[in-house]
């Protein structure tokens, strides 16, 4: 009964808030509408990933390009953060004092560095790479410079032009800095989750495994990690969600993620409320999707 009262109060508050906001927006002459999505964007996007985008394409398409850029960062970032986090977390429990010392320093330094600072630092570091004219080319068709990393694609080799490179597959310095910062930052957090979960497995399990003649690695692989996984999955999901949300710092270094594109659109059209609503929907669905997927996985391993 009590629960229902709270639910009704909650709904009433939300309705009141929305009505109040709508009334005040109207008083300021602002109206809500999404027609702008079909209008031409009139701006260019630097890093468009797999999609093509020209200024005469619609704003809706610009948002999709930004969305795919965010998805690219989220998928690669989560994957690498999990891998690095696992390796660091497990290394920290090793018997080798050099390894534990190094991993401890890694975790402590990265956890106490603000992510934005790390991002700006890495961005500045990548700007320090040789210029396009003096690009490092360890293999034919591979160029590393302050314009990014250019690799041969299936159909063509990158070519050096007057300004940088064209063709091939590229990793822009902005994307590289963003990915590196997110992976470094989040993997430090993930490694602690991994370490904590492993330590939470009762010591008797290790002793029993050793008594059975399993090696350290085998004990970890077949006895400890499967049990630790149950405890860590919800926290790993939480870390992936954090990484996705943190990726919106991209705007600070000029990577066109969905927030950057929506900011530009909001500023050029004045539809700030709508673009913010889209942002809410994007991040909410990303978080819920990750939570759902991890929930399913957790149910499977705990069943």
């Amino acid at each position: 009964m009590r629960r229902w009262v709270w639910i009704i109060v909650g709904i009433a508050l939300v309705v009141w808030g929305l009505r109040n906001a709508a009334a005040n927006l109207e008083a300021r002459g602002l109206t809500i509408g999404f027609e702008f999505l079909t209008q031409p964007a009139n701006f260019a996007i630097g890093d468009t990933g797999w999609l093509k985008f020209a200024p005469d394409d619609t704003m809706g398409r610009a948002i999709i390009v930004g969305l795919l850029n965010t998805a690219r960062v989220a998928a690669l970032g989560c994957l690498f953060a999990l891998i690095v986090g696992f390796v660091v977390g497990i290394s920290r429990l090793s018997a080798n004092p050099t390894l534990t010392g190094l991993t401890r320093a890694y975790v402590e330094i990265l956890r106490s560095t603000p992510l934005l600072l790390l991002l700006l630092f890495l961005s500045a570091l990548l700007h320090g790479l040789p210029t396009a004219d003096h690009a490092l080319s360890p293999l034919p068709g591979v160029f590393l410079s302050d314009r990014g990393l250019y690799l041969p694609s299936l159909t063509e080799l990158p070519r050096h032009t007057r300004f940088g490179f064209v063709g091939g597959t590229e990793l822009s310095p902005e994307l590289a800095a963003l990915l590196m910062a997110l992976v470094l930052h989040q993997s430090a957090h993930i490694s602690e989750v991994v370490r904590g979960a492993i330590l939470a497995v009762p010591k008797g399990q290790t002793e029993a495994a050793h008594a059975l003649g399993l090696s350290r690695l085998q004990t970890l692989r077949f006895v400890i990690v499967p049990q630790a996984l149950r405890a860590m999955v919800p926290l790993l999901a939480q870390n992936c969600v954090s990484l996705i949300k943190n990726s919106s710092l991209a705007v600070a270094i000029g990577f066109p993620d969905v927030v950057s594109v929506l900011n530009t659109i909001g500023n050029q059209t004045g539809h700030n409320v709508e673009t913010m609503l889209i942002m809410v929907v994007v991040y909410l669905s990303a978080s819920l999707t990750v939570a759902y997927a991890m929930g399913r996985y957790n149910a499977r391993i705990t069943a």
Partner: protein
Amino acid sequence: MKKFLLLILAAGCANTGAAPPGGSTLKAVRARGTVKCGITAGTGFATPDDAGQWHGFDVDFCRAVAVALFNDPSKAVFLPYTQQQRFSGILSGEVDILANGTTVTSSRALQRPFHFGPIYLYDGQGFMVPKASKVTNAKGLDGATVCVQQGTTTELNLADFARKNKVTFRPVVIEDMRAAVAALAAGRCDALTQDFAGLATTRSMLQHPNDYVVLPDFISKEPIAPVVRAGDDQWLEIVNWVFRAPVEAEELGINQANVEQFQTTTTDPEIRRFLGLDPGAITGDGLDPQWTAHVIARVGNYADIFDRDLGPKTPLGMDRGVNKLWNAGGLLYSPPFR
């Protein structure tokens, strides 16, 4: 995010000391005792000194409004915004005037609930490149990576120029101008695009200003005007005439140094009307009967302001260009004060 919170806060809890939408801004300003100006920090346009006092071209024009109302330059309060947040600042009532280099455009004027005052700077968009690149005009930048600040008309002009001239640019869109400048200095971008006045500011921020050149091409028109909320004609007119006063004063030959002398000795009917010596012409709601004289004495005429903040003797070293009086071949033309 900040912008959204601002909007929602403003929308959710209106009437918190901010000027109410549709209400009288003048009344709110009088009750508060200060004029709130939205600005964007940048050398020459708005910079705080070591005492926390703001100086610059935008600051001076906004300060003139406070002088016209209170005969006291300290009654202007300045709130710095990024180009991203500026419109929320004026729409939410957090500031009374936005004077931060906003370009007048039809879509802004027709579709958004605010009005533009008089154009107080005629600018245009250009490019700055490292001298070593040997690029001499904008079309020579075909294929180049161009750094651009987010949330400005420059982002759109860049795309338009590329389409019109069948060249391609690769934009790197950065929110904070300082980060964009750092990217240019580091060689991440082949060029930086901005309004010419902005480029002068940026160039003065670089460690080796002489290693960079501004290309001669103007790729857009950027008329700069103050922004006020729609639905308050009285406030719009006050801003209109205060922003015109320095221009008219320059045309009449009145400046900061000689205005007092004019006040005591002049017999010229035009000047007597302008200075409020013969009452009637400059009388208005809430304005001091001699507000024009106060503005010129405390802030200066257009030439005083331009020379002090942007002119050849400043780090920006800007030329008046088209920002000369109409009768000297420029575009500045004030309607008569009568």
